Every structure is written in C-alpha cells, then in structure tokens.
C-alpha cells in the first residue's frame, strides 16, 4: 500500500499555487543494490493527474529520472480558496494512490 501524498495549495492572487510531495522510491532499474549486487528492478510512477473540483488541470508522464519521493509544483488560474485539489498517480507495477486537499 502506497503511503499518502502531501498536498499544499494556496492562493497567490488569482492563481492557485499547488505543491505535491509523493512517496515513491522511483527506481530507474539501472541501479545495483549495494548489499546483494543485484539490479534493483525499475519501480517508478508512470502517470500523474491533478484535478480541481473534478476538472483535470494537469496530466503528467514520468519515469525513473524523477527524484525519489517526487515533488511537483504547478499553478492554476481561476481556482479559488476552498476548491478541492485531487492528485492521483499510477506506477509501473500498477500500484496507485489518490489524495485530496482544499485550497487554503
């Protein structure tokens, strides 16, 4: 079971400033385990989707080149305080996670 994301969203003028921290190892598949000498299999988030009040605002694709525990910051015009931000990800093993937060 994937650990929850942390989402912080604040209004900066008429633009919502959204910051997300996902919990994921983001293994590239190119790294050797120092102890066993075996290659660590690729395990990374493939897609990310962000919605505000149910409307998609951001769709992303990523791979092992994004740092462990991925951080995403984006800005949405027209959103307002109290709106719900929903962020979801799906990884290459089919594991997924969705979390929500209110815009402060």
């Amino acid at each position: 079971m994937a650990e929850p994301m942390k989402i912080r969203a604040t209004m900066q003028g008429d633009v919502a400033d959204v910051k997300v921290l996902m919990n994921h190892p983001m293994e590239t598949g190119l790294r050797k385990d120092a102890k066993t000498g075996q290659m660590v299999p690729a395990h990374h988030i493939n897609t990310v989707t962000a919605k505000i009040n149910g409307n998609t605002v951001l769709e992303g694709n990523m791979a092992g080149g994004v740092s462990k525990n991925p951080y995403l910051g984006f800005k949405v015009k027209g959103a307002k305080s109290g709106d719900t931000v929903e962020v979801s990800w799906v990884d290459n093993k089919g594991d997924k996670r969705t979390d929500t937060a209110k815009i402060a």
Partner: protein
Amino acid sequence: MNALRRNVLKGATGAGAVAVAVAAGLITPARVLAATPRSAFDAKGMADTMKAMGLAAPADSKDITIKAPDIAENGAVVPVEVTSSIAGTSGIAILAEKNASPLVADFSFQGGAQGFISTRIKMANTSLVRAVVTAGGKTYTAAKEVKVTIGGCGG
C-alpha cells in the same frame, strides 16, 4: 548560452536524422503532448528520444525560463522549474540530455493550469537540462547547463 550553442552544433547530426525521419513520413511534427508514447522514456540518447516523442527540431525560444542550479548540490535531487510565457502553452517536457534515457517527465496543462512546472530530477552527468514547450501545435525549446560533481561532504 555558449554551452547551448555548442550543443546545438554537436546535435546537428541528430537533428538531421530527425529531419530525414520527418521527410520520410515516419513521424509527424504535430502531436498531442499528453500522448507521449511510453517508449520515449526508454529511448537512449537525445536523437532517439526526440524521435520517440515525435518532435521535429523545435525552435529556440527566449520565452522559456529554466530555473536550475549552475552546479547541482546532489545529482539525485536537482530542483528544476520551467516557466513558459509563450501564449497557449499546453505542455512542458523536461529532458536531461546526458542521462541514459534523457526524457525525465512531461506535463500537459488544461483548465486554467499555467505554463509552469516545478520538480526535482536525477542527473547522471553534467549536461544540458532541456525544456520542450508545446504551444498552439508548435514546439519550442530552451536549455540550461547544470554541472554535476561527485561530492562527499555536507554538514
């Protein structure tokens, strides 16, 4: 800036290959960014990656700002922020040119999302970090060099 020019010169053969591919009708220049094929993330080297992304040689743009360090504190966590002030920006892709697989992530915007993305990437070597922006069916690009050193200290 000079680093960028050098790279463009160095990449000339790669771009040529892409142009040939376009001419041969193998790839189409216009595309929907969100539909980046998964294979583009596994492509090795810049030329193959751009090809897999279905990108013809994008035009250099001064309206793309890349905020990234001159020297990365740690290649495993390099903060990168891309802002595009090109009207109608609908997508931003981030590439680390010397990574085994250069394409790191790409994002498409709708419903009021601005042409802005902030993230942290892994970089294997000193290289250009390139942003490719899609706006109005066209693609634009900018790059910034980030030096990666092998460090040991930190306190």
